[in-house]
């Protein structure tokens, strides 16, 4: 297993893509700390890791709370060692047409999907700089590249992640730290299950592979970027979308 002795932090790991990522990294031997906004979510993470015979645990965290982020990183480092893999996966949607979008809907997305990514990343950098290695993997979205009606806020945040990641990749490359983005297309999760059937069918017509993706199909790409095999990949965005958007 190629992630033995690595400590991975995965935000938003109680379900969907985050859960699949946590299981994939743990399956490669990493010790995984997965976060969820609620205590019950954190317990479910601890349970699924344990049931699969993996190392790690769930922790409750609201990524928008700066102090909570700081203390979680400190506690993890004290208990397990320096975090060597960070997967910024936690994200929310507040869709609305721009004409109708409220300031709160914009702010909530920017806070959770962009500012929190920046803050959690800053929090783990010191340890990675000292270790002279680290893998930062941000979960973006195809809509950050293509745009999507009703998602001006979400698309802005997801595009923001890409620019931030490229800049950071330049800053810390000399210290053996890579920064990459994985941009999922439409994946079968709670987030996309909320779509109306008509919209879902229209979407499928845009996807050459003719189906939604599975969370595990995103997780395997994240696991690749976290692995020694991806040592020379940085500042990159890997689109995993069944061909609906080709760069």
């Amino acid at each position, binding site marked *: 297993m190629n992630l033995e002795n690595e400590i991975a932090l995965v935000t938003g790991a109680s379900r969907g893509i985050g859960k699949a990522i946590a299981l994939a990294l743990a399956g490669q031997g990493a010790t995984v700390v997965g976060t969820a906004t609620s205590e019950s979510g954190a317990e479910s993470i601890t349970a699924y890791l344990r049931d699969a015979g993996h190392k790690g645990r769930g922790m409750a965290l609201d990524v928008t709370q700066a102090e909570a982020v700081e203390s979680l990183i400190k506690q993890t480092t004290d208990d397990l060692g320096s975090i060597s893999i960070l997967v910024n996966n936690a994200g929310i949607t507040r869709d609305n047409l721009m004409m109708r979008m409220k300031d709160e809907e914009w702010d909530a997305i920017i806070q959770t999907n962009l500012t929190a990514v920046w803050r959690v990343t800053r929090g783990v950098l*010191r340890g990675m*700089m*000292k270790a002279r290695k680290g893998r930062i993997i941000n979960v973006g979205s195809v809509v950050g590249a293509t745009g999507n009606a009703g998602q001006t806020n979400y698309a802005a945040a997801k595009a923001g992640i890409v620019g931030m990641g490229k800049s950071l990749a330049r*800053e*810390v490359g*000399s*210290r053996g730290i890579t920064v990459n983005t994985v941009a999922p297309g439409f994946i079968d999760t709670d987030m996309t299950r909320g779509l109306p059937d008509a919209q879902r069918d229209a979407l499928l017509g845009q996807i050459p592979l003719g189906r939604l993706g599975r969370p595990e199909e995103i997780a395997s790409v994240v696991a690749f970027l976290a692995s020694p095999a991806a040592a020379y990949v940085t500042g990159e965005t890997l689109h995993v979308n069944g061909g609906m958007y080709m760069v």
Partner: protein
Amino acid sequence: MSNIEERVKKIVVEQLGVKEEEVKAESSFVDDLGADSLDTVELVMALEEEFETEIPDEEAEKITTVQQAIDYINAHLQG
């Protein structure tokens, strides 16, 4: 040479990968010792750890030479 001076110089040698004889009190990290901006951030991190202190960003920006680092530690080291 004081103990603090020796410890600061040792950290500079380790962090910047320079020879001990190159590190003089008046040496500038960037101009004389070839540090880039990230090196200076790491240097401050290393000083913080060695001397178990926190150097605020606005103070850290003023530490650009070996002597300034020694002076800062001397002025702020408790006990």
